[in-house]
C-alpha cells in the first residue's frame, strides 16, 4: 500500500516535470522564432530607409547622403551598425522634420526606430530565457543561434521631440550592455 502511494507520487512528479520541460522548451522556441522574425523585419526596414534616403539624395543631388545610403545598403554585416549610424547622421543634417517633402524618408526612419525597439525587447526576452536554469541544464536552446542586439544610436530625426538627458538606471541583470532602444546614446543625439 505504501509502495503504491510512493509510485503515485513519483509518477505524478515525473508527469509534472515533463509538462514543465515541454512548456519551457515551447517557450524557448517561441521566443527564438520571434527574435529571428524581428531580425528579418528590422533588416527589411533598414533597407527601406536606405532606399528612401538614396532616392532623396538623388533628387536633392546630395552626395554625402547618397554615399551613406549606398554604403548602408552594401556594407558587410559586421560594419552595418556603423554604416546605419552614419546614415542617421546624414539624414539629420538634411531632413527638416516638419517638411512634407521628406515624409517618405521620415516615415521609413520612424519604422526603423520602432522595429529596432521591438527587436531589442524580443532579443532581451530570448536571452533571458536562455539563462534559465532548466534551459541551460537541459540544453533546450542549443539548436537556436544566440540572438544579438542591433546596437545603433536612436535613429530619431526630430531632435526637439525628445529630451537628450534621460534617467538611466543600472539594471541588476547580467545582460551586460543592454542597449535601450528608446534613448539616444550620449554624444550623438
Amino acid at each position, binding site marked *: 500500500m505504501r509502495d503504491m502511494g510512493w509510485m503515485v507520487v513519483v509518477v505524478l512528479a515525473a508527469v509534472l516535470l515533463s509538462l514543465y520541460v515541454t512548456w519551457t522548451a515551447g517557450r524557448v522556441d517561441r521566443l527564438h522564432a520571434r527574435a529571428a522574425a524581428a531580425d528579418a523585419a528590422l533588416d527589411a526596414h533598414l533597407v527601406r530607409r536606405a532606399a528612401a534616403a538614396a532616392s532623396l539624395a538623388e533628387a536633392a543631388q546630395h552626395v554625402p547622403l547618397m554615399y551613406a545610403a549606398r554604403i548602408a545598403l552594401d556594407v558587410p554585416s559586421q560594419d552595418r551598425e556603423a554604416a546605419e549610424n552614419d546614415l542617421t547622421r546624414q539624414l539629420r543634417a538634411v531632413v527638416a522634420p516638419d517638411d512634407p517633402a521628406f515624409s517618405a524618408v521620415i516615415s521609413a526612419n520612424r*519604422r526603423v526606430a*520602432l522595429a529596432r525597439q521591438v527587436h531589442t525587447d524580443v532579443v532581451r526576452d530570448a536571452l533571458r530565457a536562455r539563462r534559465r536554469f532548466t534551459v541551460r541544464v537541459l540544453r533546450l536552446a542549443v539548436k537556436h543561434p544566440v540572438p544579438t542586439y542591433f546596437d545603433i544610436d536612436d535613429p530619431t530625426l526630430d531632435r526637439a521631440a525628445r529630451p537628450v538627458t534621460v534617467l538611466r538606471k543600472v539594471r541588476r541583470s547580467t545582460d551586460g550592455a543592454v542597449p*535601450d532602444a528608446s534613448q539616444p546614446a550620449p554624444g550623438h543625439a
Partner: protein
Amino acid sequence: MRIGIVCPYSLDVPGGVQNHVRDLAEALIGMGHSVSVLAPGEDDSGLPPYVVPAGRSVPVRYNGSVARLSFGPISATRVRRWLASGHFDVLHVHEPVTPSLSMLAVLSARGPVVATFHTAMTRSRTMAAVQGMLQLVLERITARIAVSDLARKVQVEHLGGSAWEIPNGVAIARFATATPLPGWPGPDGAIGFLGRYTEPRKGFDLLRTAWVRLASDRPGLRLLVAGPGEPEAALEGVPAALRDQIVLLGKVSETDKARMLRSVDCYVAPNTGGESFGMILTEAMAAGTPVVASDLDAFRRVLDAGRAGVLFPAGDADALARALATLLDSPKRRAALVERAAGVVSAYDWRVVAERVLEVYATAIEVEVGTVVTDEPDTGS
C-alpha cells in the same frame, strides 16, 4: 485589419483609459478597420455596438479612483471565446500589468500582442514580488506603447523593457465645435480651471491668488471652475465682494468639459508637479482657447516650448497674474496663440494618433507568426 482591443475598466464609467479606448476604436473604425472592444460589463445595453461585455465587474480602489475590474473563471472563459471567434490580426491590450481582463487576455493569447501603458505607476513591493510572474505576461507582449514620457520611463526602469511613445489623442472636432455655456465668456473676461481644486499639486490656490489680484482692478472678471470638491474649499480666502464672480460647475461630463473650455478667454493649468502628459492642455488647444500653464516638462513639450501657449515659472502666482493680465488685454496675442496652438494640436488628432498605433500593429505582426489565437494549454508550442 481585424483588431481586438481589451479595456480593463468598465466602459460605462468615465475615465482616462476608457475614453482613450473608445476614441481609438472609433478612429480605427472610421479608417475602415474592423474593431471589437472587450470590456468588463454584464450586458451590452447602452454600449457602443463594437463593445463586447466580458462579465460582472468588481469595484476596486486603484490609483485614487474606483475602477471596475473583471477577473475570474467566467471572465476567462469569455476572453477565450472572444479571442477564438474574433480572428484578430492583432490584439491590443491596455494596462496589462494589473490583474485585469487585459492580463487575462495576454495570458490566453498567442500571436501579435500590443500593450499600451497609461499610468506612470511607481515600483511597488507587490510588483517586485511578482516580477517572475510578470515576466510571463511581459514576454507575451510583442510591442509596447506608452502614452507619456513618464509612463515610458516607468517601463524602462521598472519593467525592464522599452516602450514606443504615442501621446493620447484628442477628438479635435468635438472640442472645436462645442457650444459655450450661455452667457460665457461675457464682456469682462473669464478664466477657466479644471481639476480637483483641493489637491495642492493642481495649483488651484496659485490661480486663486492671481485671480483675486486681477479681479480687484478688473471689475466683472470671472473664474469658471470645473472639478470635484467642496465649494467652501474653492472660495477660501476670497473677499466676499468677489465671491459671486467665481462659478463652480462641480464634476463635469465629457460634453460639458468641451463646452466649459469654449466658455473662457484663457485656460490656466497652474500645476506644481505630477502631471504626466497634460491631456487637458491639448483639449483646451483643440477648443481654441489660449492656454497659460506652469513650465513643467510635460506642459512645455505640449505647448511647443511656449510658442503655442504661455508658460510661467511653476509656483509663482505673481508671474501667473502678469501673464494673465497681458493676455486678457491683448485679443491679438490671444488670437496668435490660438492659431499656433491649432497647428500644434493637429498632431494629436485621433486620426494621426491612430495612424501611429497602426504602425505599431504592423511591426508586431511582422515579428509574430500568424494571427491571434487562443493559447491551448498542454500543447507546448
